[in-house]
C-alpha cells in the first residue's frame, strides 16, 4: 500500500508546491514519505513515475489539475483503468460504476476533456489488436455518451499491443494490458 500513501501526499504536496520549480526536489531515492513523493511529481521522466502510472495513479500533469477525489481510494474516480477479457470489448459489470463516476464528473465539468486510450495484450496480430483495442475504448465512449457526456469532451485513441504496462508474458500481464485508460488532460 505504499503507493497509496505516496499518492495522497503527491496530491497535497503537489497542490501546495504548485509554484516550485523542477529543480527544487531532485531526490528520487526515497520512495516513501512526502519528500519521496515530491520527487515523483517533479521528475516526470523517472521510472518510478512509470510504476505509479501502472498502478492507476496520477502523472505530474494530472496532479496539477485534478481534485483530491481522484486519489481517494474509496472514490471510483481513483480508478482510471477499465480491464477487459481476452478478445472482448464488452465492459465487465465491475467497471460500470467506475465509468459512471467519470461520466458524472465530466458532466459536472463540461470544460474538462478526456482521452480514452485503448490497449490490448500481445497475443494475436498487431493491427487486429489496434482495431480490438479501439473497440474497447469505444465501448467506454458509448457508455459515457449514454450517461450524457458530450462527445466533444472525449477523444478515443487506440495503441493496440504497442504500449503494455506489464512486460511479462503470462496471463497476469495479459490481463493488466487488456485495458482502457481514462486520461484527463
Amino acid at each position, binding site marked *: 500500500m505504499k503507493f497509496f500513501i505516496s499518492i495522497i501526499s503527491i496530491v497535497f504536496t503537489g497542490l501546495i508546491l504548485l509554484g516550485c520549480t523542477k529543480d527544487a526536489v531532485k531526490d528520487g531515492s526515497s520512495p516513501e514519505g512526502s519528500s519521496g513523493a515530491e520527487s515523483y511529481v517533479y521528475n516526470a*521522466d*523517472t*521510472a518510478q513515475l*512509470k510504476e505509479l502510472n501502472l498502478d492507476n495513479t496520477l502523472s505530474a500533469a494530472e496532479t496539477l489539475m485534478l481534485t483530491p477525489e481522484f486519489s481517494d481510494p474509496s472514490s471510483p474516480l481513483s480508478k482510471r483503468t477499465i480491464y477487459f477479457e481476452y*478478445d472482448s470489448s464488452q465492459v465487465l459489470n465491475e467497471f460500470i460504476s467506475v465509468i459512471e463516476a467519470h461520466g458524472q464528473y465530466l458532466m459536472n465539468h463540461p470544460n474538462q476533456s478526456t482521452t480514452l486510450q485503448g490497449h490490448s495484450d*500481445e*497475443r*494475436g*496480430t*498487431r*493491427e*487486429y489488436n*489496434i*482495431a*480490438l483495442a*479501439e*473497440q474497447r475504448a*469505444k465501448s467506454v465512449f458509448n457508455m459515457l455518451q449514454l450517461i450524457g457526456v458530450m462527445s466533444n469532451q472525449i477523444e*478515443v*485513441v*487506440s*495503441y*493496440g499491443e*504497442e*504500449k503494455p504496462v506489464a*512486460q511479462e*508474458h503470462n496471463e497476469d500481464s495479459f490481463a493488466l494490458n487488456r485495458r482502457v485508460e481514462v486520461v484527463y488532460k
Partner: protein
Amino acid sequence: MINKSKNIAVILISLVTLINSQVLKAELTIEITEGIQSAYKIAVVPFATPPGEVLVTDVAGVIAQDLAGSGYFKVLPRDEMLTRPTQPARVKFRNWAAIGQDYLVIGFITKDNNLYHVQMSLFDVYKKEQLKGLRITVEADALNMAAHHLSDAIYQRITGIPGVFTTRIAYVTSIFNEQNQPQYKLQVADYDGANAISIAQSKEPIMSPAWSPNGQQIAYVSFEHKVSEIFIQTLKTGERKSVAKFKGINGSPAWSPDGKQLAITLSKDGNSDIYILTLANLSLRKLTQSWAIDTEAAWSPDGTQILFTSDRGRLPQIYVMPSNGQGSAKRLTFDGNYNARGSFSADGKKIVMVQGVQGKYRIALLDLVTGANTVLTDGSQDESPSFAPNGQAIIYARRKGDNEVLSTVSLDGLTKLDIQSAAGKVREPAWAPRK
C-alpha cells in the same frame, strides 16, 4: 574453361551504395536454428586476396553463409577441405568428389587502384565442368554486396530459382533508453540484417512497414503525433508524405501491385473498415462495410482480390473479396480459432498467415488449391509473416525468451533461421521486392 567470356559479367556497384555502407554497421547476425534436410553439398573455398592485403569482408564466408541459410545447401566446413585452390587450373575434381561434394566455388580478388575485381567460378564436381564464371568490380566497402551478388548467381544456376541475397528487409525495433523511455525505429537492412540504417525514429510506436512494389518507398504507421497516421517515405531522398490522418485508426497499409493504390484500415466512420486510397489524388473508396473489425488487407498478385482479417464470424478469420468492391467476401480459413494477417504468395496459390490454436500463435500456410493447412513454426507468439521475393521462404517475428527476433522459415517448415539484433526488440519484418 567453357565459354568463359560469355559467362563473365562486370557489375559496378554505384557510389551511392558505397557511401551508405560506410556509415552502416551490422546490427544483426544470422543464426541457423534448425538443420537442413536434403541439400546440395557445396564447398566454397576461401578466395585469394590481393598480396599483402587483409580484407574486411570474407567473400567466400559471406557466400557460404548465404547458401547455407537458404536451406538448399549443405556447405563444407573449411577445416574439412583437403586443398584450397583459387585458380580454375588448380582444381582437381576427384579431391572434391572423394569427400562427397556436388559443387565447388573458388575465386580470387585482385586490386586495381581502389577497385577490387572479384572473380568467381562455380563447378559441377561430377560433370567436371564450370557452370558459371562471374567477375564483379567494386570498391572495398561493397565487397560484402559483391559476395551477395555471387551468391545469387550460384543459387540461381543450381536451383533455377532467383536468389534473394541482394534484397533488403525493413523492420521495426523498440528499445528503452537510459531514461526508460521507449524508442521506436524503422530500419532497413540487407536481407541478412547487415548494414542496418534507421529511416525513421520516434518515442511513439511505429508499425506496419510495407514496401512499394518498386522497392523505392515504404508506407508505415506512426504515432508520432500521439494518434495513428500513415506516411509514405521515399528511401533515396528521405522525403516523407502523410497520406492518411483521419479520426480514429489509420493502419495496415498495403500497396496494390501497380503501386498506385494503398489498401488501408480506417475507423473514421465508426468501426474498422478497409478503404482503397488512390495515391495520385488521395481519394478514398470504402471496400468493406461491416459492423465487425475488418483490417490487415493484402492484395492478390494480379490486384483483383483483397484478403483481410475480420471478426464478422465472432472470431478473427481471413476473408477474400474483389478489390473493385463488386462482390461479397468469402471466408478462406477454417483451421484454428484465430487466423489473421494473411498475404498471398507470388503465384497467388497460397496464403501465409498467423494461426492461433489453443493460445499459441504460429505461422501457417494455406494452399488455396488443395485446401491443405500447414503450420510452419512452433513458437507461442509468432507474427507478421510475409513471403520472400522468390517465394522460397517466409520471414516473420517471434518471441525468444523476453526478446523479439526476426526469423525465416522455408515453405516446408524444415529450415529456420534467426536474424538477431544487437539492439532491442525487432518486429514486423517486411521483405523488399527484388530490384
